[in-house]
């Protein structure tokens, strides 16, 4: 089962490209010309999101490098204790919504520290795999189209992220 899925995941991108191109050629589309036309649009989109990405990284890196993020983890650990959450998962819970690369680095470090098959190791793996970098995604997607008023998007995303977090903690406990 896992083997099939791994194979499928490897096949997905080249397979999709080949299918799309063959279908295009079959329909008499100048595939290369169409590709170039689309790729040009990709160029403008990337240039548009560059300022947003720099801005978001600035906020995240300042928070991380100043040690403020560690301080927040320390402040929150009594609350985690109160709810019976293992406090080892707090750094991941806080970092995951803000930075994908930073949380991946943290996962790497924590897996080595606690062991990948321990309860903590499993829980942080599930958290990493089942949630997204909420702040980054919202800022980049809305920034790309110039929407300023995002209404309650962030609240819903945060509530959903919290639900994912709590379920990761519980599921790893009942499905060891």
């Amino acid at each position, binding site marked *: 089962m896992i083997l099939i899925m791994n194979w499928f995941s490897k096949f997905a991108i080249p397979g999709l490209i080949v299918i799309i191109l063959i279908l295009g050629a079959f329909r008499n*589309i100048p595939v290369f010309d169409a590709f170039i036309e*689309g790729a040009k649009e*990709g160029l403008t989109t990337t240039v548009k999101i560059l300022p947003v990405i720099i801005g978001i990284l600035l906020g995240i890196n300042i928070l991380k490098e*100043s*040690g403020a993020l560690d301080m927040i983890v320390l402040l929150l650990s009594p609350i985690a204790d109160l709810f019976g959450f293992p406090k080892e998962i707090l750094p991941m819970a806080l970092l995951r919504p803000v930075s994908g690369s930073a949380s991946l680095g943290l996962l790497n470090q924590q897996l080595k520290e606690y062991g990948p098959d321990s309860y903590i190791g499993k829980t942080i793996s599930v958290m990493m795999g*089942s949630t997204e970098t909420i702040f980054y995604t*919202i800022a980049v997607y809305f920034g790309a*189209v110039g929407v300023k008023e995002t209404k309650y998007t962030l609240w819903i995303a945060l509530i959903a992220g919290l639900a994912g977090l709590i379920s990761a903690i519980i599921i790893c406990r009942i499905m060891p």
Partner: protein
Amino acid sequence: MLNYIWLGMILLGVIWGTITGRLGNVTQAVITSAEEGVSLCAVLLGVMCMWSGIMKVAERSGLINVITRSSKGFLSLLFPEVLGNRSAMGAILLCFAANFLGLGNAATPLGIKAMEELQKLNKRKNTATDSMILFMVINASCIQLIPTNVIALRNAAGSADASGILPQVWISSLISTLTAVIFYYIFTAMDKRRRLI
């Protein structure tokens, strides 16, 4: 909203850095962020161009039409605003598919494409539409079939069963996606009521 969060992040970082005497690190962070942003975009640029090009071929060949027609019922249920707009529906679907397959960097350009299509239908250009909000929150709580990077890291850390966490990942992300959809309906209902009063 993001304006305040962003300002808060920076202020908190600088103030805390001053108290703890880590202003040197903060200065370093400012410079590296700018560099990191550019290199991230450079990585993204290639994939973005490649993917947009392939998408253009798919659009011309009518493949997107076929895909959207076949999943029209499901999509129009969630996104009534985009009913009948094939490029918007196609972009949303392909982005979900890319997320589901864990294509990571391939999903971002598709997501931005979907947002651009939704923005074309938007009457107030600076305000998010219901469809945009739902699209964003489903995206942010993505259901992912195979989180390849997590499995790779677990393997590297010497796990006996690196992909053994997959069922837990599926259940957990399904719960968070369902929560996102439920709260989307709660928030929009509250918003409508508030506007009526």
